[in-house]
């Protein structure tokens, strides 16, 4: 894990003195994230909110791989989140899979869908890419709505409650919110570690090179198309994992998980926290959900507050909460 490949922009602009603390932050980013995640259920207003931050944070981390690091604005990532959730739920409820097998099964289905959508959509660029991902995600949504005999349609998928989990002789009450949180957190932590490894690998450097300048990356001899599809699939895999955790947590899969609103929410969270930074998406998910939770307590018109904050961020803090903090710290 070296700082030099963390971010091209950073290498080009950051004075050596600042690279020191940023390198340390990069080296410690996974343990730090896990520490914060461990504390979440105790500092947030409710455990249900903590689980949501965990799941949506992971979802945003997966999305950030594509949007933040590769620079591709997808408006259809709800499809992979939902596919993971539906596959996990169906795996448990219909195929009789144990809970721990449902997670890789959900990732497999979500990842395969992401691979297919990625193959099709990377043929386009810029705004057209956003539109294709949106259209394909809408197709997935309507397919789930129509095949109600399998998915439960508008009523959502039900009937796969996991009340108790058994593994290696351990038996954990999965209805207990705290225990459930820490079980789900283990999976999120492993995923974070893997994402961190990927970003620190040569592959991580290549996707950032594509974000900075696609033509140049191509000229350097990188297979841009292949890299894009890989980034898309990886991103979809992480989002699908978040989906499986969502299904295990709520024990239902609402049709809304596949909706365009969910896709939009992922974009908002990522941008709010800071696209292209490791901690940003989690900070964004935390800020978004907390804002919604708190504002909704004193006005049902929480959307106007969330929307205004979002506009202000696009206008004045496009790097998001975390990105701005980092830039501010680096600038001193």
């Amino acid at each position, binding site marked *: 894990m070296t700082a030099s490949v963390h971010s091209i922009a950073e290498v080009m602009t950051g004075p050596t003195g600042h690279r020191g603390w940023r390198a340390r932050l990069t080296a410690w980013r996974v343990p730090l994230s896990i520490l914060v995640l461990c504390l979440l259920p105790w500092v947030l*207003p*409710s*455990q*249900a*909110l903590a689980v*949501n931050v965990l799941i949506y944070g992971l979802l945003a981390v997966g999305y950030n791989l594509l949007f933040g690091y590769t620079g591709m604005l997808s408006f259809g990532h709800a499809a992979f989140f939902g596919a993971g959730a539906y596959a996990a739920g169906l795996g448990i409820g219909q195929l009789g899979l144990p809970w721990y097998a449902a997670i890789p099964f959900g990732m497999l289905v979500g990842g395969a869908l992401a691979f297919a959508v990625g193959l099709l959509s990377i043929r386009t660029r810029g705004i057209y890419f956003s539109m294709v991902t949106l259209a394909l995600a809408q197709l997935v949504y309507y397919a789930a*709505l*129509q095949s*109600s005999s399998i998915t439960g*349609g*508008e*009523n*959502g998928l*039900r*009937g796969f*409650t996991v*009340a108790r989990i058994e593994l290696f002789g351990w038996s954990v009450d999965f*209805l207990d*919110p705290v225990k459930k949180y820490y079980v789900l957190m283990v999976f999120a932590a492993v995923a974070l570690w893997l994402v961190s490894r990927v970003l620190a690998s040569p592959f991580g450097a290549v996707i950032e090179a594509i974000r900075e300048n696609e033509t140049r990356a191509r000229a350097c001899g990188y297979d841009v198309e292949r890299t894009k599809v890989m980034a898309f699939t990886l991103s979809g895999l992480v989002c699908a994992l978040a989906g499986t955790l*969502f299904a295990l947590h*709520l*024990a*239902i899969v*609402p*049709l*809304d*998980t596949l909706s365009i609103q969910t896709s939009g929410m992922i974009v908002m969270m990522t941008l709010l926290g800071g696209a292209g930074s490791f901690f940003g998406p989690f900070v964004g998910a935390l800020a978004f959900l907390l804002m919604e939770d708190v504002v*909704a*307590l*004193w*006005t*049902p*018109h*929480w*959307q106007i507050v969330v929307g205004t904050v979002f506009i202000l961020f696009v206008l004045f803090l496009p790097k998001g909460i975390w990105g701005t903090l980092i830039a501010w710290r680096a600038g001193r």
Partner: protein
Amino acid sequence: MTKGLPTLPITRRHALAGLAAGTATLAMPGLLRAQSETIRIGFPTPLTGPYAAEAKDQVRSAELAVKLVNDKGGIAGRKVELLVRDDKLNAGEAATRTLELIEKEKVHAVVGSLSSAVQLAINEVTRARGVIFVSISQSDTINEVKDFSRFTFHEALNPHMTTAAVAKHTFKPGMKIAYLVADYAFGHEILRGFKRAQAAIGATSVGEILHPIGAPDYSTFMPRLRAMKPDILCICNFGRDQANSIKQAVDFGLNKQDRIVVPVLLYTQRLGIGAEAFEGVVGGANYYWRLQDTLPSAKAFNDAYKAAYSGAYPTDYGAYGYTGVSSLLLAMAKAGGTDTDKVIAALEGLTYDVAKGPQHYRKCDHQSVQSVLVLESKAKADTPEEADPFRILAVEPASEDILRSCAELGFPS
């Protein structure tokens, strides 16, 4: 929330009350708590979204039910408190809010929901955790054995009984019926109910058209519906879909050719769309305040409601908040507290008349057996009082005859 701000204090007050109650219980010694602890009832409802007006009425009615009980000294000496949460008409949000109510607020029961998906989501959460849930949203699915929970009681009408009652008072032998159906569970349940009634009455179907849920434009279906030349056009959808499809059917002159029948007539919807489009439309309802002309319990409910909310009348979906919470509180009073098994036994043995004549929960599927109203929307000229847009065509009395049998739902006999 339409009239927006009025609901705001309710939510905030409840949040604060919940907070205060939380701190109070923490401070109290454990022994004392068991007897004097407030009875907390969670109430998830869509305060934001297209049914905010209905949700607001539900909250008001539910609060009234709680207030009336508290005024009489509560239940076994314990005060009752309602914890309102916004489920945003979203199943995931509803499940999360219900988890929060159970895990953090430690509620003794949950009442609420205003869509089939939300209702089934809450049902899943409460079933796994053994919490009593009184559901107040229309669905046939929740009656079926697959989704049955012994902790769940279904206070709302279901599509089957609603359509049975509406068809009984509108379909005639030999009539030709055309159906425009929203393509999702609720629409299909309504269609199934109407078609069963149609077969029993001896009417015939001249065609069924499915439309995507949430469609804003129905003009493309109208030429075909017109060509079917039906005596009755059954529009099997809900809420905004219903408002838009009725308006466009009227634009195409279909109301001149046939009679429009819908499963559920919503009071707020009718006020929102106006008298012209709805003139002559017939549909079912769980409650209409005009019941007071014949029913003392309806009169008592209306009077209490009007006294509490500066002369306003309770509405149909709003009344569910009252009947749902009232039945639960009656059962808790009978059980002498909040012991889950005792309250379930009390609910199963309960006969109550709080607003619309006698009701009871059927043993097998916990469906509330109750009267169904068949209403007709009046012409503008016949509506001197804005608050009185409907005429009661018939009141189908409470009877298991209009329900699917327990065996049909999959329950062992």
